């Protein structure tokens, strides 16, 4: 594995974390969709690069799925849904963007701290990729909980998935990666379908509290 290969992989993984931060920063709906497409693109490139350096052609399939499904179909579909359901174009945040970013930086530090003790035999690349993918996962979770908007939550979830795919491909020679990524794509698709089907316009949690009490059998 030569230096260049390592550098490119490093660059792409680092880029993914950066794009995650951009997702976290974005407060416009369509901007968010575009950045997510970029996120998926970076993952797809990263996977493809791994396929190249690991000499694992099946990873190209994963890369292709990521590209087609997540970089193209889903952003477009979501775009349509937003328009169709008349979803608000600005994203309601729970805490301020600045605080979210700070928390995100803390999460990245945490993931590096956690991954650091992993011994060298796992390989530098693996270690770094893992640290980055863990960062992406945590940032995705952070996004899910710091946004009130259903679409951005779904996007947070999909960025988690991207992080997972990064981790899976970084684990050199891992079998079933394709199968897993297909399985995951089903979930993702279902999420989007769910938003559409359940007509969740704004948030997961906009249903009024009285309705919730009835649903959850809370009345005495």
């Amino acid at each position, binding site marked *: 594995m030569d230096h260049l290969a390592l550098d490119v992989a490093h660059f792409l993984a680092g880029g993914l974390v950066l794009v995650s931060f951009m997702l976290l920063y974005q407060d416009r709906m369509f901007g968010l969709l575009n950045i997510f497409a970029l996120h998926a693109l970076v993952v797809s490139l990263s996977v493809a690069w791994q396929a190249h350096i690991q000499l694992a052609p099946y990873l190209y399939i994963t890369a292709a799925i990521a590209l087609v499904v997540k970089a193209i179909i889903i952003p477009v579909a979501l775009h349509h849904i937003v328009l169709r359901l008349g979803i608000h174009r600005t994203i309601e945040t*729970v805490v301020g963007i600045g605080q979210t970013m700070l928390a995100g930086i803390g*999460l990245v530090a*945490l*993931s590096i*701290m*956690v991954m650091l*003790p992993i011994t060298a035999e796992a390989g530098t690349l693996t270690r770094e990729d893992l640290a980055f993918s863990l960062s992406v996962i*945590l940032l995705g*979770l*952070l996004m*899910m*909980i710091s946004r*009130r908007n259903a679409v951005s*939550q779904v996007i947070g979830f999909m960025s988690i998935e991207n992080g997972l795919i990064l981790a899976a491909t970084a684990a050199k020679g891992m079998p079933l990666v394709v199968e897993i990524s297909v399985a995951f794509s089903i979930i993702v698709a279902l999420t989007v379908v769910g938003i559409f089907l359940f007509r969740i316009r704004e*948030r*997961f*949690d906009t249903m009024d*509290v009285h309705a*919730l*009490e009835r649903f*959850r059998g*809370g009345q005495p």
Partner: protein
Amino acid sequence: MALTVLLLCAGAWLATSVVALAAARRSTATSLVYALALVVGAVALGAALDALIYSSDSIRAAVLPIGLPWLGAHFRLDALSALFLVVVNLGGLTASLYGLGYGRHEQAPGRVLPFFPAFLAGMNLVVLADDAFTFLLTWEFMSLASWALVMAHHRQPGNAKAGYIYLLMASFGTLALLLAFGLLAGPAGGYAFDAIRDSEPAAGMSAAVLALALIGAGSKSGLVPLHVWLPLAHPAAPSHVSALMSGVMTKVAVYGFVRIVFDLLGPPEWWWGAVVLTLGGISAVLGVLYALMQHDLKRLLAYHTVENIGIIFIGLGLALAFRANDMQVGAALALTAALFHVFNHSLFKSLLFYGAGAVLGATGERDMERLGGLIHRMPLTAIAFLAGSTAISALPPFNGFVSEWLTFQAVLLSPHFPQWVLKFIVPAVGAMLALSAALAAGCFVKAFGATFLGRARTAAAQRARETDALSLAAMFLLVLLCLAAGILPGYFMDALAPVSQQLFDARLQPQHLHAWLTIVPVLESRSSYNGLLLFVMIAGAAWLAAWVIHRGASHALRRAPAWDCGFPDANPATQYTAGSFAQPIRRVFGSVVFRAREHVYMPPPGQMQPARMHVHMRDLAWDTLYAPLDVLVGFAADRFNRVQWWTIRAYLSLVFGSVVVLLLVLAIWN
């Protein structure tokens, strides 16, 4: 042999339960089930008596391949368990006999019949169990069966609460015992009692086990402050079951305490005795005071169980203290006193509950304020109830007096304790014992007087009819036993000797050898009592006086209206009621113990309203322990319940938070 018979009996009871389940709807089911239970009970009683009296020195053990798989179910029959089996099966026998008659009035036989034999089986098996798992399994099974019986009349208001508190307290006790056995068995899980006996307990551990055993057995037997369930649950069950629960099941709890603390735990420390004594004394006094304040007949009896359990625990505490100071005679005496009281209480408490059941059956009332004058309509029940009242009030020549007398003798042996704390506690507890005995007499004057004497206060009491012959047979069997144990206590004490022999390696001198069947616990110059002689003398003197007067003077008699200081009132409501009877004692003790407050409402002059007086009493144990707990749980439940209405985002935050925390933990760990 005896053990096999007893195990077979337990199996037979369980089979009877199944039969009852199958046949519950038949009209003959009641007779069939109680008759079967009676026959099996008689066999079991015979086996237990045989084991206690004729072959008490041999220990029989058996292991069945059930229960914990690698351990099996261990059973053992020694003197201690034989004694308690006698108590259990005597109670079971009379309860079955009583049930044969009383059970016919049962409205919901389907809810009683299947559980009654199961309850008997459970109590027998607890006493036979010889490993922690079997013990607790059968212990809780016993609780469960009795819970089902408490819930038999589930439609009556209050019974649901009674069952609720009962099962919860029982499980709390089981939990305490579970922890105690966990300590005794150690991490390797040596659950067999033999293994526990062989192991050497650590210093701090024994104290914890004692505390847990006190909680466990105390909550089942009704030691203050764990007594709250008892006055609720015992009255709720059908009367013969109340008798079993109050008279017998509490004794099984005492057995559990004795088994753990005297047998399994190894040599005691002196302060154990102090703790047990104090709890016993407090229970005795508070129990009887609570009882005095009741006007529900069965509830009064249930509270009295608290008192008697207190007396038993006083004896046990003394035995522990004597044992810790290597005073074997005292230990044997105190233990004999406690065990004799166990036996006696099971007799008269069952008897009284049967009586209360007969009253309930005849009138549909448990409230003494609505009874009265039943001695005219239920003369035989009245005689039996009077005998039971005399016995429980510790009056000679009945049996209750003998065991309290023995307890007093044990107290009087105790000034030689070297520990100062005991020197202070023992006489104080002695005073409590005396106080509780005196109050008990007052309480039963009230109970018997308000129920059976005077004039009928309601139409229901007016119409009452004498109860059936089988119920009466059960009651009079117990009357005879009470009297026998009272006037021939020597034989009964000798039967208890193997137990103290087994536990302490010491026993009282054989009593039946003394002249004229006098009982002499230690030395004749110290104390002695002869129930037979007293009985004969009292009966003789009374008969002689009556004979002389009737023969020599006059036996003329004229019935006339009561004089009542010149202004008799025909209305029975002018009688002294149970509540007014207790009023002086409530004035003396109640204001402190129950925070009793009287609220008097006097209508202003000229208004035609009745004046009213309300008495508010509080149960301090309930107020200070249980009510705050209830509030606390409610508060916590309300607080946590808000989580139910969180949004998905909030739930996700929980997940996120756990991930971050876990990662932080890992990062720090590394």
